[in-house]
């Protein structure tokens, strides 16, 4: 627990006055927010939602503060970031629980969007959430033993706690520990486990949960119901993603998504990397829009670094230009593949991807790589625009892209088949969207015009004039239309940015190999093309982060998939999934 230092009296904050004794300000250096007593969590959260208007739970992070220090206690800390759906800054509060028996009340009753995030905290950290209806592992498989994100968990070929690893360059030669650890010997088994007698289980818990969910939908369980697995090997699930579906004829009565087939424990690797090494690593999250990932991470660490990492103006404009180009390229891909899911045999997908290729050419000219760009640095960007690129971007943005987007709009929007397949399918009400923590186009297509670029502006977005795209029907057709709208708004921003692009420096200071980040925590979020992409970084002064958590929009947007699909036909599941627009790199991390 934090020690209340015998400091001079300070004024109580508004929140402390409202909840005397329950809430205390978090006074650790570099930290923000309040600490709430663990047993009063539900009361506090209810009051937040009902009285103070904080109805959007954005992110739940679990941090493991393990110390060898005898004086300090080890504890788990759960960090909650709440927002108002009418805009504004975050309300951050934390719960601290003892490490040997981590139990906390679950927020699922109040904020259904907490569902997957609490399961992830259970899976990777071992924090039990009481009252959670379905606390199973989400990213690891069901029989896994251990909690991989804890600080005292070592993987089978553990080398060291932080990179650069000493044993990789003995005498200047590189070798990897896997070379000394042959295949088959790099496994770690729990006690009493015998691999030769182990039988594969078919994940019975999943099917039990499915049956329970089906019973909630309709009281009498018809024995004619079929359980079908869509995925993981399926041409239209946008990656290795699996949905266990219970069907009654053609209607879906229950759907449970199963993910984790691409889980790489990105967050633990992020803890091992130094801060600057994490920058190319974030490219691999949402691998289709790498610039946005970089942006979010850069914002988080720059918050920690303070003023000496403020980017110069040219760098800010370049960042915005790259982010908006990424948004356009991502939406082109999303629309193309939504049409693919609808059965249009790749033709609109190829037309859209053709435009995306031109954007990727620009990325390659500027950063050297098409997809894994690694462009942002703390305090600016890595490279300036080479000769002639600015003109190329201008041609693309001012002349070609508006024409091509209008063309796509002309072909697709009024098509009778698309309208009849997409209208009224997969409707999400705005209240549901906010409660289930949906973000990005999914939220805005349901009539909640919440765009972080306007609601809680970052970088220089408040200098641009653009509209927040919003649609008010909440079905698949609107989620398609809103992506077209957002592309047009991005073009507006790009035109303004290109006109105002100043000359000057692109990086604040020199380009360091290692950065010194002062201790503290920061949550940097950007409006990524798929939604709110947030990075929660905790630093303790060392060259590598203490905790590095990604608030992945695709992962949290999937919470509402079940509600969206139940009651619809099985032919619409793939269309619904395509309209949420997930990328497995982000979902599984």
């Amino acid at each position, binding site marked *: 627990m934090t020690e209340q230092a015998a400091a001079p009296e300070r004024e109580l904050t508004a929140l402390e006055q409202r909840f005397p004794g329950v809430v205390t300000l978090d006074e650790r250096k570099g930290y923000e927010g309040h600490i709430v007593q663990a047993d009063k969590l539900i009361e506090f959260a209810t009051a937040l939602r009902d009285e103070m208007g904080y109805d959007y739970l954005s992110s739940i992070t679990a941090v493991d503060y393990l110390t060898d220090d005898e004086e300090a206690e080890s504890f788990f800390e759960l960090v909650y970031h709440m927002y*108002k*759906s*009418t*805009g*504004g*800054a975050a309300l951050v509060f934390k719960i601290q629980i003892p490490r040997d028996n981590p139990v906390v009340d679950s927020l699922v009753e109040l904020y259904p969007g907490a569902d997957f995030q609490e399961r992830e905290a259970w899976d990777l950290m071992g924090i039990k959430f009481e009252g959670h209806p379905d606390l199973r592992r989400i990213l690891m498989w069901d029989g896994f033993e251990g909690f991989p994100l804890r600080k005292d968990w070592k993987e089978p070929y553990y080398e060291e706690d932080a990179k650069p690893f000493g044993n990789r360059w003995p005498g200047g030669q590189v070798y990897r520990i896997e070379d000394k650890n042959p295949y088959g010997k790099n496994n770690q088994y729990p006690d009493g486990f015998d691999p030769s007698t182990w039988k594969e289980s078919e994940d019975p818990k999943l099917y039990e949960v499915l049956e329970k969910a089906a019973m909630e939908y309709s009281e009498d369980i018809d024995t004619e119901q*079929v359980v*079908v697995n869509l995925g993981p090997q*399926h*041409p*239209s699930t946008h990656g290795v993603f699996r949905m266990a579906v219970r069907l009654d004829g053609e209607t879906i009565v229950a759907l449970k998504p199963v993910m984790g087939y691409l889980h790489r424990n990105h967050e633990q690797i992020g803890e091992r990397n130094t801060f600057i090494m994490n920058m190319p690593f974030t490219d691999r999250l949402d691998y289709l829009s790498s610039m946005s990932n970089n942006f979010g991470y850069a914002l988080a660490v720059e918050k920690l670094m303070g003023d000496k990492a403020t980017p110069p103006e040219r760098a800010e404009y370049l960042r915005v230009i790259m982010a908006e180009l990424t948004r356009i390229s991502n939406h082109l891909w999303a629309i193309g593949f939504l*049409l*693919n*899911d*609808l*059965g*249009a*045999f*790749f*033709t609109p997908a*190829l*037309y859209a991807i*053709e435009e995306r290729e031109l954007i990727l050419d620009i990325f390659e000219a500027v950063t050297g790589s098409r997809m894994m760009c690694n462009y942002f640095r703390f305090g600016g960007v890595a490279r300036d625009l080479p000769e002639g690129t600015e003109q190329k971007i201008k041609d693309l943005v001012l002349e070609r892209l508006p024409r091509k987007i209008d063309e796509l709009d002309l072909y697709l929007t009024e*098509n*009778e*088949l*698309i309208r*009849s*397949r997409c*209208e*009224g399918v997969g409707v999400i*009400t*705005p209240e549901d969207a906010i409660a289930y923590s949906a973000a990005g186009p999914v939220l805005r297509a*349901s*009539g*909640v*015009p*919440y*765009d972080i670029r*306007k*609601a*809680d*502006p970052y970088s220089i977005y*408040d200098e641009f004039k653009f509209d*927040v795209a*919003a649609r*008010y*029907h*909440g*079905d698949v057709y609107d989620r398609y239309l809103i992506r077209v709208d957002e592309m047009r708004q991005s073009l507006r921003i790009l035109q303004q940015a290109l006109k105002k692009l100043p000359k000057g420096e692109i990086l604040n200071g020199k380009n360091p190999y290692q950065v010194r980040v002062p201790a503290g925590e920061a949550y940097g979020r950007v409006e990524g093309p798929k939604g709110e992409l947030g990075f929660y970084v905790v630093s303790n002064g060392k060259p590598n982060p203490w905790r590095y958590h990604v608030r992945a929009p695709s992962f949290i947007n999937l919470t509402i998939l079940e509600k969206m699909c139940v009651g619809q*036909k*099985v*032919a*619409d599941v*793939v269309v619904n999934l395509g309209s949420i627009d997930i990328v497995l790199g982000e979902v599984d991390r």
Partner: protein
Amino acid sequence: MGFLGDPIKFIGDWLKSLIAPLNLPPVWETFLSTLTSVIAVASFGLLIVIFLIWVERKVAARFQDRLGPNRAGKYGLLQTFADMVKLITKEDTTPETADKVVFNIAPVLSVVSVLLIWAVVPFAPTWFGTDINVGVLYIAAVGSFGILSILMAGWSSNNKYALLGAFRAVAQLISYEVPMLIMLMVPVLLASSMGMVDIVARQDMWFIVVAPLAAVVFLISAIAEVGRTPFDLLEAESEIVAGFHTEYSGMKFGMFFAAEFLHIFTVGVLFAILFMGGWRGPGAEQFPLLGMVYLMAKSTVGYFIAIWMRSTLPRIRIDHMLAFNWKFLVPLSLAILIVTAILHKLFAATTLYIPAMLVGNLVIFLASLGALRAVAQRQRKQRKPFKKRPVAKAA
């Protein structure tokens, strides 16, 4: 006239001269000549599939702004041979719990059912497999074998996905048989005969000019019969992986594949024969080869329309598809039949024949469009928007 004038007759006479010295009874002679002509037709059918797949891939690629296969042979012409070789040398996996006999018969049946249609196709005034006087009825009957093969494939795979796919495929195919058959009546009505040769012989004025709407409805239902986009639920990759042929691999899958392409081309050929005058054209009576060329050219029109629709349209969901059929196409086709019958009776030999038919078709077309639009508007109105909220701004 020689070889170029009438190649088949030339080859036929030459073959007859070969077997004449054997002095076989005439029954044997007929049998042998039938056998050779049938082998010719069957081989033509199977070989043209190879060319058709190449055409499909190239044309679909051009729609998608790319080139299509162009490495295997000049212009990629040998691509289909390469694919066939690949499919033949693939392993033939049969699921253990599958019903082996039915599993193996299904692809054979699907190819046979399409090839049988070619028996009555008149390529030229004197070139046809056989001139049975119930040609149209025969085509309708034989086309239904293919549906049976789909159900056999789905059932015998012992796979939930395949079975669901097979049921829906069969539901789609038998539904679209109805408007197709009713529209097949229109050329029969106008030609007063069911035989294909007669229908072509009576087309001094192509039936597509006299009954354009019937041609369009026939083409739509026939494309749905084959299972092409936008009606390609049978093999919707996005939904139930590969539908009824999920469990097939190797050449058995190749047979389904070939049967589908041949079926589309057959639909094109039937469209050309029934509505576009078949082999008729300048000089076709004297040079049968020209007649065949005309027929092939006209059938590529139907085939091209099918490829065009496949490349540009998304898929229809099954309930929309069946509603489209039962609630729209069936009454529409009955209306077309009735109006065509009445107008044909009234104006048959007069000069006002063609304008009257065209006007009749136009009236039905506009009426059906109006009905569709009214239904769509009503559906659109049911989609209510949520309440507007103010844009979220930083406080």
